């Protein structure tokens, strides 16, 4: 490993915030050599409780993250936050505004907040999120809160990054709760009904409870999914929510699910790394000209995608 990387890792492990910030930049940009650093960081990680916060745009995820962080700080924990916002598909730029609602946390040395752009990733996270979690974990932050892009029904990537997934719903979205039956509702370990000071909060909670009563028993037998009502405005429900998160962490540890989830996540990470390598090889094997020739032949119906894929698999040595 390069000496500079070694030095950066040592600073990161000793709690230097600038070193962690720079490591995140290296990870996000896939700078050569960073994977060696991540391998080293992996040995120091594995202590943090990783909590995912997801839900539709505007339900109050950032505000809730702020309140959660404050409560965890009250319990003397060092908290890291990853806030993901969407990258514009047109300009490639992004406006990362989650810090606006996290203003009261600024200046607390026990809190590290990083905004990340999704950079083309469609699952509500960015491709680098899990590696950034690893760096924050190694730096001693626990818990690590991941706030996803405002999600619809299908952005379930968070379940492959977090130990405990919190789905946030706001009152007044009753019909939408129905529409969420599949997908995002199925990944929740906890439900939060935010803005309980607004009318309709109890009804939303009741609808969620009804949906849960219909859930298959394997989902609910060992862990009864709690529905917590919160009001950021009045500061209500936050300590109950943190208690519920702590209970879930305890449940995961006791049941062996924590290890099971962590292993499943690592397997999907390894698969992603291999897939990335295969695509890289493919890019090296086939020149743009050859791609163009193949694609023309396929669109002229002289060839078909399946035999071309087969031929390329052979050339990459993927077929025995």
């Amino acid at each position, binding site marked *: 490993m390069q000496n500079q990387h070694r030095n*950066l890792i040592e600073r990161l492990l000793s709690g230097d915030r*600038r070193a962690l910030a720079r490591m995140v930049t290296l990870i996000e940009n896939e700078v050569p050599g960073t994977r060696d650093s991540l391998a080293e960081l992996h040995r120091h990680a594995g202590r943090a409780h990783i909590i995912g916060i997801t839900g539709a745009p505007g339900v109050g995820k950032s505000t809730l993250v702020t309140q959660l962080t404050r409560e965890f700080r009250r319990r003397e924990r060092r908290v890291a936050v990853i806030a993901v916002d969407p990258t514009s598909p047109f*300009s*490639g730029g992004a*406006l990362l*505004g989650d810090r606006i609602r996290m203003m009261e946390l600024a*200046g607390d040395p026990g809190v590290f907040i990083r905004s990340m752009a999704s950079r083309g990733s469609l699952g509500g996270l960015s491709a680098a999120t899990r590696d950034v979690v690893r760096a924050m974990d190694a730096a001693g932050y626990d818990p690590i809160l991941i706030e996803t892009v405002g999600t619809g029904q299908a952005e379930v990537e968070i379940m492959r990054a977090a130990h405990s997934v919190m789905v946030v719903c706001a009152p007044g979205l009753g019909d939408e709760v129905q529409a969420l039956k599949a997908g995002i509702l199925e990944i929740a370990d906890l439900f939060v009904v935010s803005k309980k000071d607004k009318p309709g909060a109890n009804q939303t909670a009741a609808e969620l409870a009804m949906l849960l009563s219909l859930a298959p028993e394997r989902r609910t037998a060992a862990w009864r999914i709690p529905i917590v009502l919160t009001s950021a405005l009045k500061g209500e429900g936050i300590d109950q929510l943190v208690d519920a998160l702590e209970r879930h962490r305890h449940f995961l540890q006791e049941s062996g699910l924590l290890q099971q989830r962590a292993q499943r996540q690592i397997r999907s990470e390894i698969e992603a790394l291999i897939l990335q390598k295969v695509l890289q090889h493919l890019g090296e094997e086939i020149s743009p000209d050859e791609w163009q020739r193949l694609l023309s032949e396929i669109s002229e119906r002289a060839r078909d995608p399946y035999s071309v894929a087969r031929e390329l698999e052979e050339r990459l040595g993927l077929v025995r």
Partner: protein
Amino acid sequence: MATTRPIRVLVAKPGLDGHDRGAKVIARALRDAGMEVIYTGIRQTPEMIVEAAIQEDVDAILLSILSGAHMALFPRIMELLKQNGVTDVLVAAGGILPDEDIPAIKAMGIKGCFGPGTPIEQIIQFVRENIHPERLQVEV
């Protein structure tokens, strides 16, 4: 590739004035120019701005100020950056900055000053051209 990564910019409003329309227009324009823009909102202390710049590891900090307190707040921000060893970040300022203050502002290490009426293109180009070249290599 490391050299083509998006530029990361912090847009911050130090001090007590609550008018952030200009800051928001700039933030949006930089986003549309392909940059990742972290907007912190109004009423930021120098400490909050510097801490955000560190955690977000930004390439540039754009300060927007209309209150007239720039000669109190800017030196504090530049001093805090130096204290924290942040020496490779471009700092520029916009808003109501009287002509007679500009030499002093530039002497603090704030490289660009943009008053009302500045074409947005000019600001985008300034940011692109003045990012510390080593930062975009993203070396350690």
